[in-house]
């Protein structure tokens, strides 16, 4: 067991793949929570004022895209480590 673990850790290629998985996995926490909070705020606003549906949904989509960009950075990091 120990030799297998040492073999994995000493090999640079395998560490890269572990890093790729960690990058995408841990990097999905923040955007997920952020988008959830944005949706929560949008639902509350919609419940209070259903007539303002247009501006609320437009701004919510803008905010969600900005938050999702961070998740995309994590994905690109994972791609760079895993494929290139």
């Amino acid at each position, binding site marked *: 067991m120990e030799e297998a673990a040492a073999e994995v850790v000493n090999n640079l290629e395998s560490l890269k793949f572990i890093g790729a998985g960690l990058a995408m996995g841990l990097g999905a926490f923040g955007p997920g929570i952020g988008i959830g909070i944005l949706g929560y705020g949008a639902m509350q606003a919609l419940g209070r004022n259903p007539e303002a549906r*247009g501006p609320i949904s*437009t701004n919510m*989509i*803008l905010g969600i895209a900005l938050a*999702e960009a961070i998740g995309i*950075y994590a994905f*690109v990091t994972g791609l760079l480590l895993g494929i*290139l």
Partner: protein
Amino acid sequence: MPKLGLKAKLLLAALIFVALIAIGAVFFPVPQPEVHLSPNYGGHSPDPFFTLGPFYFSNTLIASCITLVVLVSLFALATRRMKLVPGRLQNMAESVIEWLLNFMEGIAGPDNTRRFFPVVATIFLFVITNAWLGLIPVFNFIGWVAPHPEPVATSFFGDYTGPIVEVALFRGANTDINVPLMLALVSFVCVEYWGITAVGPRHYISKFVRLQQFSSGLKELVKGHVKAGIGAIMSGAIDMFVGALEGLSEFVRIISFTFRLFGNMTAGEVLLMVMLFLIPFCSLFVVFYILELLLGFVQALIFGGLTLVFATMAVAPHETEH
């Protein structure tokens, strides 16, 4: 045939679904797709079709030329003989432009919209046409085929021997990192240009280089009020740091724009390929196709909308504190 109730129909549909999966997996094996970040799939850097001096032609360049031809011909045909009561093509073009104008006026206000409309609308239309053209079956499908005599592993059991497309002739232009980079640089240059021409270069630079409080603190020190001088110097230093951060964030926006569009489009392509080749003969793929259509539209909206927001912030006359 007896009449089937709802439960029986659902059970029959599920059985047909499973049977299709089984038939597809056993009799028609498909290879697993390979994902490449560079166009032309040539190792670490693109291996172009042919080079013409410093320019090289890759499949994403051909795709963006197709986009150009489609957009220009569409709008040229629509405005060829304009009538007061429009025909169908002119009506469609007018409704697209009107929707864009309303969207921009909701964010920026009427006179700003007039000034920013050409660049923002071009960015929006270019990104959305690139994204949607990349979803036609012609893209990623026609290309240089290499026959594979040695069998390739598939998702289920069995091996695939047959032709495999090595290099595609057309590939969605947004998946090449140069196109989002170009759009981000154009957006950056245009926002700075509008900001400088709207409020004047000195006032615009004073947003990033805020020496006001620092120099007034130095003047207080020279006059002899030590306490007030040192307080103003410290808050002036913080002010300068904040201004430098704002200047840095202007440049970081280029990278953020690039990777947002590139990452979304590449992730979408990867998702579509994996879903298509995972379970052949099942229409699970259609859901992800609809998602990709929506995502292309949203990403175009985000790119144009964020450019508009930053341009509006840049031309707004900002107050400095005294």
